[in-house]
């Protein structure tokens, strides 16, 4: 951890954004606990609250909550993106299924490099995962904003380089 040596481990000055992030994370953990336990007895709920608080404490000490990943701001824009992504996934699934089931496998695998429009690591991670989730394209490396993508066909590579998904992810994770 790179905090000044003379400040105590529990620094008093936490930003308002930290508290917002922390309470959002706590709410998420608590919702997961309630869904998976399904019991509303006071003892079990308070045990759940206790374990959620311990996890929050541990993440704070690990510095996980210091980083500004911006996932909170993404939430309202997420449903529209998911709908679009689901459409893409369905289309490319049918394409790849047809390739697999054709009697002669006609493959033309190519490797391309894609410049990510999204500047921050979070946006690039979302882009890489979206590319991998769509069958026919596969992220195999990301380095300083450049994604190495393996494509099953050249048509898929051209579709990817047209940059529709790239632009949408950049708009999604914009601050």
């Amino acid at each position, binding site marked *: 951890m790179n905090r000044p040596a003379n400040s105590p481990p529990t620094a008093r000055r936490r930003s308002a954004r930290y508290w917002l992030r922390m309470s959002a994370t706590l709410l998420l953990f608590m919702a997961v606990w309630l869904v998976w336990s399904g019991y509303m007895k006071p003892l079990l709920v308070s045990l759940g609250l206790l374990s959620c608080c311990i996890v929050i404490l541990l993440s704070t000490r690990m510095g996980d909550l210091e980083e500004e990943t911006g996932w909170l701001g993404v939430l309202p824009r997420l449903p529209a993106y998911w709908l679009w992504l689901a459409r893409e*996934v369905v289309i490319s699934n049918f394409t790849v299924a047809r390739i697999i089931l054709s009697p002669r496998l006609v493959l033309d*695998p190519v490797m391309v490099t894609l410049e990510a429009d999204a500047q921050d690591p979070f946006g690039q991670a979302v882009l*890489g995962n979206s590319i991998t*989730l769509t069958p026919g394209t596969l*992220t195999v*490396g990301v380095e300083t904003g450049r994604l190495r993508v393996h494509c*099953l066909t050249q048509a898929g590579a051209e579709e990817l*380089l047209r940059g529709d998904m790239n632009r949408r992810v950049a708009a999604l994770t914009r601050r």
Partner: protein
Amino acid sequence: MAIVLDALSWAMLVGGALFVLIGGIGALRMPDFFTRMHASSLTDSLGPMLVLGGLALQSGWSLETVKVLAILLFLLITGPTATYALGHAASVAGLKGGTREYRASDPREPRA
């Protein structure tokens, strides 16, 4: 209405199972490692979406629906992450498998 929902959920369940099966066949038929990964991504994307979506429709609105959808969300986030780790490890190890470089718009191509 209930019958329509029922039929839709059955269709999703069977369709998802079909896609999972096609992915399995592809993982066996494909000639090299990276193309096999594409086949297996078929069983990691639309397969779970349809199977678990069908199950969620079957269960109506209950705690089970939320659990099934949470499993689906978890699979859809961790699946590509694991696939990326695998593909990255394989490409670092130098697996190629008849793949050629393709460049359309980007002249500043870094050496692979």
